[in-house]
């Protein structure tokens, strides 16, 4: 191999950056492929590098695992950033998924993907994170009882409408035949779905 393997500390830093939850040393070892002792040593080094005295990012040992957090000394800046940050605008795909949940919901991830004709799991995940969609019960009739997705009050607040009834009715938007086609796609069983099959993330 012409390239040097990254240092154990670097591997841990990268994994710690992409986890919002504490990671157990055993999981760090299995992700990085490092022996447990190497993980221990690297964590000790990182604790120094990411200490409250030396950094705005601190490495905390919590709940049996390790986690990056902001240094409490910097919390004013973080809070102000949060106040001022402009939320990322919604994509066209996100609008489509919201329209599905608003007009056809509550419905499963699979149903969203079938109606749109394209795997929508990533977009759904993003909308859940942003609190515009929420899981509202489960479809007990489907195998694995997948969660049902619905729009949230926060979504309604973001659109500035008083209630769902303020949105134009569905039949004013699309024709009878088109609606029938949508319903057909909606109720077609998971197994014969033509929507690109993505891994079901549950």
């Amino acid at each position, binding site marked *: 191999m012409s390239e040097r393997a990254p240092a154990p500390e670097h591997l841990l830093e990268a994994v710690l950056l992409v986890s919002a939850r504490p990671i157990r040393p055993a999981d760090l070892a299995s992700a990085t492929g490092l022996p447990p002792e190497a993980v221990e040593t690297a964590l000790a080094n990182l604790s120094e590098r990411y200490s409250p005295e030396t950094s705005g990012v601190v490495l905390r040992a919590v709940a049996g695992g390790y986690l990056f957090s902001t240094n409490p000394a910097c919390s004013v800046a973080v809070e102000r950033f949060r106040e001022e940050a402009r939320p990322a605008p919604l994509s066209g795909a996100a*609008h*489509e998924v*919201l*329209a*599905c949940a608003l*007009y056809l919901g509550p419905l499963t991830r699979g149903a969203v993907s079938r*109606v749109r004709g394209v795997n929508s799991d990533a977009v759904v995940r993003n909308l859940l994170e942003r609190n515009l969609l929420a899981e509202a019960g489960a479809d007990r009739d489907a195998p694995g009882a997948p969660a049902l997705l619905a729009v949230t009050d*926060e979504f309604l607040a973001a*659109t500035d409408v008083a209630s769902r009834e303020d949105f134009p009715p569905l039949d004013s*938007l699309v024709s009878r035949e088109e609606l029938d086609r949508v319903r057909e796609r909606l109720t077609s069983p998971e197994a014969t779905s033509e929507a690109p099959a993505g891994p079901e993330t549950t």
Partner: protein
Amino acid sequence: MTFESAGRSLADFTVELDVYSGPYEWLLALILKDELEIFEVPLRELVGLYAGSRDPESPNALDRDTDFAGSAAALILLKSRTLSPAVEPEADGEDAVAASPEELAERLQEYLKVRRAAEDLRGRFARAAGHYPSAHVVPPKPGRLRVAEDRVALAARRTFSRLLEPPVRHLGPITVTVQELVGLIRASLLRGPVSFEDLTRNMDRLRSAVAFAAALSLAQEGGVRLLQPEPLGALTLELVEPPR
């Protein structure tokens, strides 16, 4: 005819035919823009050229093959479509008018730039891959996000009225090549003229479509004559005697 050594993709595949010499991609562009008669392009020769340029050891041999097979299939389709009697060109008024060579040159020049830009982008994407963002994101304050009501309605209209693309899974993998069927047609014709119906009696729809394209290709190259006494009537193939 020559071709430059195979590179990363079909971008390096150069062909020299009587009607055209230059990058294969431009040939495709020329044909797709109706600027080069599809009949003038000997498909079999093209396949031969490509086969000769193949490097099975190359790491992206499969990609290249797939790209080539895809474009060759498009050419076959185009060739057969062009021959079928009642097909109108696309109702795209502006494009249906034959462009002058100058206009075409301009468009191809622009396309070439876009091709190069695409290659440049490919490299940039590849170099930037593997960057993952922080998962420690704080959510923005509730109420800061605005969602436009009419955009949701518009998205509903778009989503619910979209035609799904027809499923193609039932077509299965394409396991037949034009060369194969060219060989088969030649062999059949050694025993005398053959009707297209007899030739394709035991073939599925895909094979007969490719057989048709192969027959057209042979006819265009002058090896085979196609006889069809009346429009849409029975089609017979016969071998053209080589000049002595």
